[in-house]
C-alpha cells in the first residue's frame, strides 16, 4: 500500500506542476505564433509554439506511415508463417532487444546513414525515419500479441471455404484484430511523440513553421529541451506550456488506446 502511494507521488507532483506552471503560459497567441528565436528580451517577444506542434504532428504522422505497415507486416509473418521456427524466434528476440536500444542511438544511426552517408543536412523526414525505427518494434510486438488472439477456428473456416492464405489474412485475420492493432499503433505514436533524442540531430530545430518535410523542423520535445537551457524565466515558462501541451496530446492518445483495448472483442 505504502509503496503504491510512493510510486504515485511523482505522478501527481509532475501533473500538478505541469498544470500549475503550464496554464500560466497558455495564452491565445501561444498556439498561433512561431517562436521568434529572440530569447534575450523575454516577455512577449519570444513567441509561441505553433511550429513545434505542427512539426511534431507532421513528423510523427510520417513515422507512423512508415513503421505501421512494416511493423504489422512483420507481426503477420511471425504469427501466420514464422510461428515457432528458429528464424521466427530469432526475429522475435531481436525485435524485443530493439525495444531496449536507446533512442539516441537510433538518432546516431540515421545521422550516419542519411546525413554522413548522403552528405546532406538535417531534415524533417530524417527525424521521421529515426522515430519510425523506434516505433517499429513496439508496433510489431503489440501486433503479434493481438494477432495471436484471433481464434484459429476462424482461420480454419475460411481456409475450408477455399480461401487462399492471403485472403484469409486480409479478409479474416486483420479485420478481426483491427481494434487491438489500432491500440498498439496509438501507443507507439504516443511514445514517438514524446521522444527528443532521435530528433536532436536528424530534424534539428527551427523557428518557422514548415509544411515541407525536407526542411529543418521544429518539434515539441526539442523545443522544450532547447528552452530549458535558456536562462530567461519567460522562455522556461514557454517550456512548461509546451510540456503541458505535449503531455495532454500523449495522454489523449493513451486514453484512446485504452478505450479501444477495452472494446476489443477478442480480449
Amino acid at each position: 500500500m505504502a509503496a503504491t502511494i510512493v510510486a504515485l507521488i511523482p505522478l501527481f507532483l509532475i501533473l500538478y506542476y505541469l498544470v500549475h506552471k503550464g496554464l500560466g503560459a497558455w495564452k491565445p497567441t501561444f498556439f498561433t505564433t512561431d517562436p521568434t528565436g529572440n530569447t534575450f528580451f523575454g516577455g512577449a517577444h519570444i513567441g509561441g509554439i505553433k511550429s513545434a506542434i505542427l512539426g511534431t504532428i507532421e513528423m510523427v504522422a510520417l513515422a507512423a506511415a512508415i513503421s505501421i505497415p512494416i511493423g504489422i507486416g512483420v507481426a503477420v509473418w511471425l504469427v501466420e508463417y514464422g510461428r515457432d521456427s528458429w528464424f521466427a524466434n530469432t526475429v522475435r528476440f531481436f525485435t524485443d532487444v530493439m525495444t531496449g536500444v536507446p533512442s539516441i542511438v537510433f538518432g546516431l544511426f540515421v545521422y550516419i546513414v542519411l546525413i554522413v552517408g548522403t552528405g546532406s543536412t538535417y531534415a524533417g523526414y530524417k527525424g521521421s525515419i529515426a522515430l519510425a525505427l523506434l516505433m517499429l518494434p513496439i508496433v510489431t510486438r503489440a501486433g503479434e500479441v493481438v494477432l495471436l488472439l484471433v481464434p484459429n477456428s476462424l482461420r480454419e473456416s475460411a481456409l475450408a471455404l477455399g480461401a487462399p492464405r492471403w485472403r484469409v489474412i486480409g479478409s479474416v485475420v486483420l479485420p478481426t484484430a483491427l481494434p487491438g492493432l489500432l491500440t498498439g499503433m496509438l501507443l507507439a505514436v504516443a511514445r514517438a511523440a514524446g521522444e527528443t533524442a532521435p530528433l536532436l540531430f536528424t530534424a534539428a530545430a527551427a523557428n518557422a513553421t514548415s509544411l515541407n518535410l525536407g526542411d529543418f523542423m521544429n518539434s515539441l520535445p526539442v523545443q522544450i529541451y532547447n528552452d530549458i537551457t535558456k536562462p530567461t524565466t519567460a522562455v522556461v515558462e514557454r517550456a512548461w506550456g509546451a510540456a503541458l501541451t505535449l503531455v495532454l496530446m500523449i495522454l489523449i492518445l493513451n486514453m484512446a488506446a485504452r478505450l479501444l483495448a477495452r472494446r476489443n472483442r477478442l480480449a
Partner: protein
Amino acid sequence: MEAASITSGERGLLTRSPLARLPDRALKWGLTVLAALILALIVYFFIRLIGQARPAFSKEGVFGFIFGNNWNPEAGHFGALPLVVGTLITSALALLMGVPVAVATALFTTELCPARARGALTVLVELLAAVPSVVYGLWGIFFLAPKLKGPEQWVADRLSLIPFIGGGAVTIPNYFIAGLVLAIMILPIVSAISREVMATVPFDQKEAALGLGATRWEMIRIAVLPYCRSGIVGGAMLGLGRAIGETIAITIVIGDATRLGHHLFNQGYSLAAVVANEFGEAEGTHRAALFAAGLVLFVLTLIVNIIARVIVNRSARKSFRGPTAGARAEGGGVTLVDAAAGV
C-alpha cells in the same frame, strides 16, 4: 499449412493453378524478407557505427577510451571513464530505489488491493510511462533538484565519514537526482513485468499456503516471491537497460562534468548525455569519440537487454508456452498495453 495437407490427396480437383497461387507466395516471401530486414538492420547499424567510431579508438586505444578519466574535447582528450561510471552509478541508483517500490506496487495490485481498484491503479502506474523523458527532465531540474538540495546536504553532512557519499557540498545537477529521476522512469516497466509474472503463480500454491495457516504476507513470502524471483530479476534487468539508455532527462539533470565526481551529490556526465549535449557542434575526432560513446552505450544496453530477455522468457515459459500464452491467461487488455509500451 492446412490447405496443403488437403490438396495432397485429391490433386486434380483441389490444387490451385500456379497463377492463382502467386499472390500467396508473394505475400509469404515478401513478409519473410521484411522480417529478415529487421535483423539485417541491426547488424548493418552496428557495423556502420564501428566504422564511424574508429578514429577515436585508434587515437586513444579501446582501453584508453573506456578507462581514461579525462573527457576534454577542447584539449583533445577523450577518456570516457567519467561517462561510463556516470551511466553505471545513476542506473544502479535507479535500480536500488526503483525496483523495491515497483515490486511492492506489483504485489499490492495483484495480491492485496480490492479487485475494483486494481484496474485504476494499474493505469495510474502506467501513466508514469506516458510522461515524455524531456518533461521528467524539466520537472527534475526546476522542481525536484531545488527542493531536495537541503535534505541532500543534510545527508551528505551526516554521512561525511563514508567515502563517495558524504562530505562535500551538494551541487545542483548531481548523480543522486539523476538516479532518482531514473528510478521514477523505470518504475512502470519493472512493475508491469513483475505484475505479469505474479499473475502466473498457480492458484493452488497460494491457496495451499493460506490453508496451512499462513497470513497474507507469509503467503506472499513462501508462495509468490520464490516463484517469481527470476521474472522479477529479468524485469529489473530490463529496467536497467532503460536506465542506461535514457538520454534527455539525464542530460538535463546530471550536469556536464568532464572528470569523475568525487561523491554522490556532485555533478556528473553520462554516455547518452554526452552525445545529446555535444554532438551538434562536434567535429573530427570529437565527433568520432561521440560515435564511440554511442557504440559503448549500444553494446552495454544490448548485453543487458539480451540477458534480461533470456531470463524473462525462461521464467515465463516455466508455466506457459511463452509470454503470449500469459497474455491469453490474463485477459488481453492490460497485457496488450504492456506489450505496446515496450515491455
